[in-house]
């Protein structure tokens, strides 16, 4: 399984970025290879609108099975994400990626 996080940084100790569209980074964890990689998403800062759909497009291209985020996607992004076969977990605010991943494994995150 491939797990995507919206993240302020790029490591397991980074905090979850509570924002979906305007997340600083998208961090990917490949459970098979145990590899942690990241994609910089800071370019959306220049967009007044459309950050949600832009990030949804990016997430689609990364093809994760699971997304772990904070506040949850906004209206436009949610419409786009509906077309993905991806489970979405929210409310990981103020957690590090490691804590959020453990909460996901133990079933302690809210699924959209």
């Amino acid at each position, binding site marked *: 399984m491939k797990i995507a996080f919206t993240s302020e940084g790029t490591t397991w100790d980074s905090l979850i970025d509570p924002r979906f569209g305007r997340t600083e980074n998208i961090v990917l964890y490949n459970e098979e290879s145990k590899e942690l990689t990241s994609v910089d998403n800071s370019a959306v800062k220049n967009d007044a609108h459309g950050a949600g*759909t832009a990030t949804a497009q990016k997430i689609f291209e990364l093809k994760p099975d699971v997304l772990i985020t904070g506040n949850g996607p906004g209206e436009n992004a949610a419409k786009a994400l509906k077309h993905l076969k991806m489970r979405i977990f929210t409310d990981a605010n103020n957690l590090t990626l490691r804590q959020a991943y453990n909460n996901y494994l133990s079933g302690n995150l809210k699924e959209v």
Partner: protein
Amino acid sequence: MTDRKPLKIAIASGKGGTGKTTLSTNLAAYIAEQEEVVLVDLDVEEPNSGLFFKGELIHEEAIFKMIPQWDETKCTLCGICPKVCNYHAVIQIGPTILVFPELCHSCYACSDLCPTAALPMIPKKTGTLRDFGIGNLHFVESLLDIGEAQAVPLISKTKKYVAANYGNVSITIFDSPPGTSCPVMEATKHADFVILVTEPTPFGLHDLSLAVETMRALARPFGVVINRYGIGNDEVIMYCREENIPVLAKIPNNRKIAELYSSGKLMYRDFPEVENSLSDILEYCVKEVKGGIA
């Protein structure tokens, strides 16, 4: 005052709630006592100039913007459209092209660059324009539909309607939205003169200075009207002096003015000093715009 080229005055502000509508409605009604005038409410997200006039509805029309509509049968999923959309209004999720109409700026890039014509542009209603007649006063307002994020296309089409129908009227007043973003620029960029209404407070000064920068960027001639004069401090006056910005009038802070406004009434008839200010403002605008007097 009848033999000059038509004069377009925009009334704007950085800060909201400084008195744009107060000035627009009173100035328009004051001019209408003498001659034909057009008042256009371009604050399309919350037009309220109409609260001050009871007129006859002359014309009403729906305003549309163009958006792409995906034709699944023609699409080859080549991936060009999401790449050329600067506004992320068109995205491709697997075998599906999603269009987000409220993000679309009607630039036609996706539609024109689609090799199989799978994104034809179709009209989408964004608001309603209404045109009222009240004696010498033509009052035009537009209201953006709920859920629509973009005011600019509606403002632009409202201006076109006014130009087509009232282009020969000697004075047109545009009541602009607050702030300094795209809708304000659209509402002011064709004005011959812009009046920035502010209040003499730190907030008023801060937002005035942003509005001044905007007007300088747009190369619009402008002046300042200080409303609720008497509250706050002298910083706005000092700022205007340092920046060589003309202060066209000071409207006093007066509870009675606020009471009249809040009950939807014009105030200049009850306040001779305000009527004098309106006269000064109008005279300044006419003089300032070159060739104003034939």
